[in-house]
């Protein structure tokens, strides 16, 4: 597996149609810190002064979805605007944010896969938790389910594949681990990722404004509680 913590420079992004109501600005085909930083910074910059007719800006792991109203702006004209923004220097500040500390319980009933994951990483359980929590994790993107965040990246010993089978339901707050990333579920979801722990923090409350708190670029620190 390619190490996503390598910092490749990102060439100019590809702008492709995502149907007839959205464009996708894609910074890379594979996930890396550089691609995620570029997508995150681009989305922030675009959101500061979106062209007329843009209805939604959705940052993702390596790309940004831009929804538009075709009665207000043509896709060609929007693509031209987007490439101007992408070609201008993206501010490195775009890839920074708040730091969140998440009290978390690991293993046992909260993390049924912890032992297997530690074993696969050649660590005992405590050493695995310490190594996991020592990683400076950044929120890479929200996606998949309400308030669900992908965080990365762990170094080589902590890069293991997904489970071969999918669990139909894991509870809200589940801390998930696979492919060099930690993800946090905010709602009950099915997942093929390893469940290693649980936090009481819920990154989704439809009654709050905004309904989610984490943003791409934020730092997440997991703190072990018993």
């Amino acid at each position, binding site marked *: 597996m390619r190490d996503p913590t390598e910092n490749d420079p990102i060439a100019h992004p590809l702008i492709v149609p*995502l149907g007839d109501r*959205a464009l*996708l600005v894609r910074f890379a085909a594979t996930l890396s810190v550089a691609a995620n930083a570029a997508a995150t910074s681009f989305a922030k910059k675009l959101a500061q002064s979106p062209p007329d007719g843009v*209805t939604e800006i959705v940052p993702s792991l390596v790309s940004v979805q831009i929804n538009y109203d075709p009665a207000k702006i043509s896709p060609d004209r929007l693509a031209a605007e987007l490439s101007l923004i992408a070609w201008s220097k993206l501010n490195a500040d775009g890839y920074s944010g708040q730091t969140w500390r998440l009290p978390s319980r690991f293993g046992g009933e909260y993390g049924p896969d912890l032992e297997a994951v530690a074993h696969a990483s050649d660590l005992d359980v405590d050493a695995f938790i310490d190594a996991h929590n020592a990683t400076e994790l950044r929120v890479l993107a*929200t996606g*998949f389910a309400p308030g669900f965040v992908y965080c990365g990246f762990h170094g080589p010993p902590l890069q293991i594949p997904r489970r071969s089978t999918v669990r139909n339901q894991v509870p809200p707050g589940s801390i998930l681990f696979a492919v060099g990333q930690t993800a946090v579920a905010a709602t009950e979801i099915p997942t093929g990722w390893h469940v290693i722990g649980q936090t009481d923090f819920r990154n989704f409350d439809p*009654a709050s404004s905004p309904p*989610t708190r984490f943003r791409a670029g934020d730092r997440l620190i997991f703190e072990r509680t018993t």
Partner: protein
Amino acid sequence: MSATILIERVGPMTTVQDAGRIGALIHGVAASGPMDQHGFSTAAQKLPRWGTSGIEFTTSGLGLRLLSGQLEIGCAGGVFDARHNGSPLPWPATCQLVADDYLEITPSSYGNFGYVRFDCELDLPSVMGSLATNTRAGLGGFKGRALEVGDRLQFGRLGKDNQPSNPSSAPKGGDPIHFTWGIHAHLFNHDVRQGFVAGLFEVSEQMDRMGIKLRDQQNVFSSNQNLELVSEPVVPGDVQILGDGTPIVLMRDHQPTGGYPRIATISTPDLNRFAQCRPGTRICFEPITVEHSLAVEFSRRQM
């Protein structure tokens, strides 16, 4: 006196919908909204004034009784049989309901989804700016779920006056489904892409508000490799190829992002028509450009 309706007969997957939860994708929530947006707006166009939300029902039909107050209703989408206190109404239908009136809707010749719109606003809490039910996330609509027998829906203020507009004409049923190539189309080889355009597909019974699976009758995607892709944004109409080669068209309650390859995205007007194709309908796909798709859609609106 504000109107209240009682759901007396309902099938699964019957939900309250509005134009959708726009702006929620950044929180990991799809917009939801009607499976057939054209049918949903046609139902409102039948009314002198309309509330922003309505009920989406399925081929299981719908029976509702007005318990109190009065309501003017408009129905459209597909072809259904509608009866007002037993008397048949032409489809699309309109009628005035007074207390104790019964509206009975049963499936007829065409379509999976029909809509009832009202001249008043449904009195339901707005969730993230919308009344649309998102069945996957359990948000919005009536308690975040599909309607059930015994549910009572209350109405509030009158809807806004109907602005005369040029509603787009419904595309014809037998036309090919137009699409623009998807964000992973280049990952499928030439033969597979040709097969997708030349092949015959059949709408399967595995259909819900999240997605509609297709039967790939000529096994175009049988040799599909399980590609490892970075998860990327999904839009309604994306034709995604699952690991076992099954094509699935992602619909209004889709996952906001997905990691399976997507060969195509069905054009906006044709996605409404596709949603109405019943299981067993044979469909074929025809590629167009985004520019062409928009030109056709906007010229239709002006006709």
